Structures are given as C-alpha cells and as structure tokens.
C-alpha cells in the first residue's frame, strides 16, 4: 500500500468551446495551468481559491471526470487516465449544491441504486445503508422523497452516497455551499471524523474558517496555479510583516476606498457589508501605523468600532490571491 493517496504532476487542462452554429467561433480557456501536489494517506487537504481559480477542474482531473490536456495524476498509485476503473473503486465524490440526487426517489432508493452502481455486495448493502443513514442523521426520514428535503439534508445524503463503497480518497467540492451554519458545523464534524478514521480527504471551499479548522495542509490556487501550499500556520506567514486595521463604518464610497488604497504603507484595502454596517479592512506594513491616515480619509463618515489586530489565515489568503490578481492585471496592460 502506497503512502501517497493523491499525486499530481504538471496537470493542465484547457477547455475549448464553440459559440454559435452559424460561423462558429472557437475559444480556449486554460483553467488549470500546471498543478503539482502530493497528498499523503489519511491527510485532510484543502484546496482554497476564488471562483474560477481552477478548484473544481483540478478535482475533476483527479477523480477521472476530465482527461488532463497535459501532466499526470495518480490516486493510490493508479493512473487516472489509464486505470480509470481502479481509481473509481477507491474514490468518492461529493459536491455542493442541491443537484446530483434523484429527486423523485427516496433517500433509501438513491442509496440502493448507487450501492449497486458502486458494487457494494448484496449481503452488505442493507447494513451499510442503515449505518450511513445513521451517520448523516437521515434515519427515520429515509423513505421520504428527496424533493422534499432541505439543502442540508440533501448535502448529508450526498455524503452518505459518496461513502457507500468505503472510498479511500474522498473529494469534497464546496460541500458547505448554501448550508446553514448549524448544518455546516455538523458537516465539518463528519468530515473530521472521516479523516480521523483514515480516509484521505481533498476539500475545496472558500470558507476560510472551515479550511483553518479542518485541514492538515492547504493549497491556495488562483489563476490555475498553486500559489502557496502549507499548513494553516505556515500560510499565515504570508501575511507576516503586516498588520490589519478594521473599521466599522456607514457610507464609505468607492472614491474614499481608492484614496485609502494609495496611502503610504497600505498594502491592501477591502470593503465588506455586514448587516447595516460596512467593515473596512486595511492591511498595511507592520512598521507603519496607518490608522491616523485612514481615519483622516474617512472624515465625515459615521464610524463604529476601530480595531487593530494580527493577521489571520483569511488575511494571508487575501494577500496571496491579491498578489496574483495584481500580477495578472499588470500583464494585461498593453505595453
């Protein structure tokens, strides 16, 4: 048994699309542009990145749904292109959202069907299905049609479905999308339990707290490339040498935000709406105190709490992703 569950080398994937039937136009998009990664057995590995960064494409290259344009990948030592069936026997795939289940069938029927498809032996099926229904707390409601389920229930059923054949490697693609906070916490607990029991998990998410809490290691992916890789603690170093100022405000406009951007020492400024208020987050060089300058730019705006703090994983993530965006913006400027 190999110590490595997932290994990818130089994975690339280009999408070609054709638009229009009359004089069709061809377009090519490079979604993944050379990804290398290795995930050990039993590891809980996070893939983090903004929308369109290449997370889902990477997962689909690893789980045999897509054939790479270039590069190779192995799951438990089996090649994803040539030994497809061996790979599929060993993997489970769960994605977020409410699709991917037969709505007009009950949870039980859905599981029975997939148990057959995944080759769970007949004798074992009943026990396995009951066990999983209990694990995802759907026991008692397994005879209801899935169309009446809430988002969280569907998501849990998805997980049960992905685990039917006891996969060694589980791909979770944004499993907590659209799930309420309580359900999301339960979901995290389930995932942590699985990893503790020895299942290798590759998780994509854009909830930072989820990644921080769960993952042994995290890769930040943006622009189709892995931009940073390490434990959550290691990734935090990407924001080293910075400090963060958070200002609660009411009525900051774009003009003021860009003015703050250009202040000396400011590396990054962002605005988020939280309830009725806005939260302005300013990252600056640790050596320079920008608080006074920022507050001056906000003169006339009603302000709430002002806090200065150490950078979190989220700040590190923002720093990494912004670096990529600035670089690609710079590349896009015509010379």
């Amino acid at each position, binding site marked *: 048994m190999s110590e490595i569950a997932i290994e990818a080398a130089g994975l690339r994937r280009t999408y070609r699309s054709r638009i229009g039937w009359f004089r069709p136009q061809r377009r090519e998009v490079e979604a993944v542009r050379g990804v290398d990664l290795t995930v050990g057995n039993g590891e809980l590995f996070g893939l983090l990145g903004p929308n369109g960064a290449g997370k889902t494409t990477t997962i689909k290259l690893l789980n045999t749904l897509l054939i790479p344009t270039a590069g190779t990948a192995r799951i438990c030592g089996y090649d994803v292109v040539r030994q497809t069936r061996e790979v599929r026997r060993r993997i489970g795939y769960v994605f977020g959202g409410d699709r991917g289940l037969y709505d007009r069938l009950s949870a039980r029927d859905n599981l029975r069907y*997939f148990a057959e498809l995944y080759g769970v032996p007949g004798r074992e099926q009943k026990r396995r299905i009951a066990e999983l229904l209990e694990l995802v707390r759907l026991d008692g409601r397994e005879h209801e049609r899935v169309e009446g389920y809430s988002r969280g229930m569907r998501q849990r059923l998805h997980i049960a*479905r992905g685990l039917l054949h006891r996969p060694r490697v589980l791909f979770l693609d944004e499993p907590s999308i659209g799930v309420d906070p309580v359900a999301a916490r339960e979901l995290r607990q389930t995932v942590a339990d699985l990893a503790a029991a020895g299942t290798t998990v590759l998780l994509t998410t854009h909830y930072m707290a989820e990644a921080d809490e769960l993952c042994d290691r995290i890769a930040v992916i943006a622009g189709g490339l892995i931009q940073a890789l390490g434990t959550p603690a290691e990734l935090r170093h990407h924001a080293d040498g910075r400090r963060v100022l958070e200002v609660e405000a009411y009525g900051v406009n774009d003009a003021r935000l860009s003015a703050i951007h250009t202040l000396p020492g400011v590396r990054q400024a962002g605005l988020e709406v939280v309830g009725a208020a806005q939260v302005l987050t300013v990252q600056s060089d640790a050596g320079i105190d920008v608080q006074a300058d920022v507050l001056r730019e906000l003169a006339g705006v009603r302000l709430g709490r002002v806090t200065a703090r150490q950078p979190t994983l989220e700040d590190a993530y923002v720093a990494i992703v912004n670096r990529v965006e600035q670089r690609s913006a710079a590349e896009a400027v015509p010379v």
Partner: protein
Amino acid sequence: MRTLRLIAVGALLHAKHQSRSSLEITIALILPVVQATLAVHLFRAGAEPDRLLEAAVGAGLMGIWSSVLFGSGGAIQNQRWLGMLEMIMLAPRPPALVILPITLATALTGTYAMVATLLWGRLLHGIPLTFADPLAFAVAVPGCIIGLGMFGLLLASTFVLMRNANALTNTLEYPIWLVSGMLVPITVLPGWTGPIAAVLPTTWGARAVREAATGSGPVWPSLGVCLAISLGCLVLGALMMTHVERRARAAATLALA
C-alpha cells in the same frame, strides 16, 4: 450475477423515478389511448372491423416505441439535465452498464401504454381480451420490452454523438411505426422499405406480440430474431458508449455547464 442485479435494480429504480413524473405519465397514458381510439375507428371504417384486439395491442406497441425513442434517445441528455451524469459515470463500471438500466426502464414504462390500451379496449369498446396464446403473449411482451431496451442503448449512444439528436428523435416516431408494421403490417409499402424493416428489432418484436395475440404465426422465431438483433445492438451500443464516455471526459461535456 452482480451485473444482472445491477441491471435489474437499476432498471426498476429508474422506472420508479420516471413513473413519478406526472407529466410524463399522463402523456404516456393518454397519447396511446388516443392512438388506439384512432386505430379502432380506422379498422371499423376499413375492411377489418373484427381485428380490434390488434388495434389495442398495436397502439400499445406504438406507445412502447415512443417511450423508448424519447426516453432512450435522450437518456444521456436527461441525466445531464438532472445533474446526474457525472455521478453515475463515476461508478467503477463500464459505461454501457450504467446507461443500460436507464434505457430498459424507458421500455418498461412503455408498458403503461400497453396496459392502458388493453384496459381501454376492454372497458370502452368491449374488446374481448382473448389472446390466441396467453402464455406466449405473457412472454412476448416482456421479451419485446427487453429487446427494445437493449436497442435503446444503441439509440442513446448514437444520439448523444449527434448535435441535432432532438430533431432526429422528433422525426423517428412515425416512420418506425409505419415500417415495422406496429399497428398492422403494411403490405402496400414500397419494396425498398423491406430490408429496413427486416433489420429493425421493432419489426420482429411487434410481430411476435401480434402473433401471440392473434395466433397468426409461430411466436418464438419472431421473438428470437427480435432478441438476437437487439443483442447485436447492445454490443454495438456498448462499444460506442465506451467511446462516448472517453470523448466526454476529453471534451468536458459530462457536466451541465
């Protein structure tokens, strides 16, 4: 054994899923009854007023073909729209084994049409359901359904490769009814349609069912030819399915997006 169970359980669960769509079921029940009414009045108006059982059985067969044509021809597209295609193709099985239960299910739900037209014939027109060979009828109908389900796999894999499959599906309902002689064997057709009819499993399946119902000939040879051709279609369809799956993974067309 495990493969057989996968096919059986898969087909039953897919049939269950399809049966719970009220729109599809209503259409699947009403249209054949309209066709059967049409057939009965045509037979009465024409030279064959005493062949009403044939009208009911024939209209039922037409319904089975419609179900297979629209269900199997669009099987892969339907699964894609349901968001299920990736999920089922990810199973560690040959792709043909994943799709076959679906096409079998479309033939299975086609039996609603047969049940509907027979009941309608009995209750409304008082057509006595006296089959020449009830046992053979009870075997020929399921046999025909299995045959058409296997033929469906070839349809599914061919249609998914065509960009305009929907348009083709819409045109193929009447010609197959006509050429296969589903309602009644058409002896007045041009000669060149003969060879086409001879290679279509629908021709032989319909013939076997009619022979069992009316005693117009030996059932087993027709049913045998139907199943043999269907098996050929199944093999061809399975080979194409493997090609289709590979192509879809390369072209990224498994997902909805």
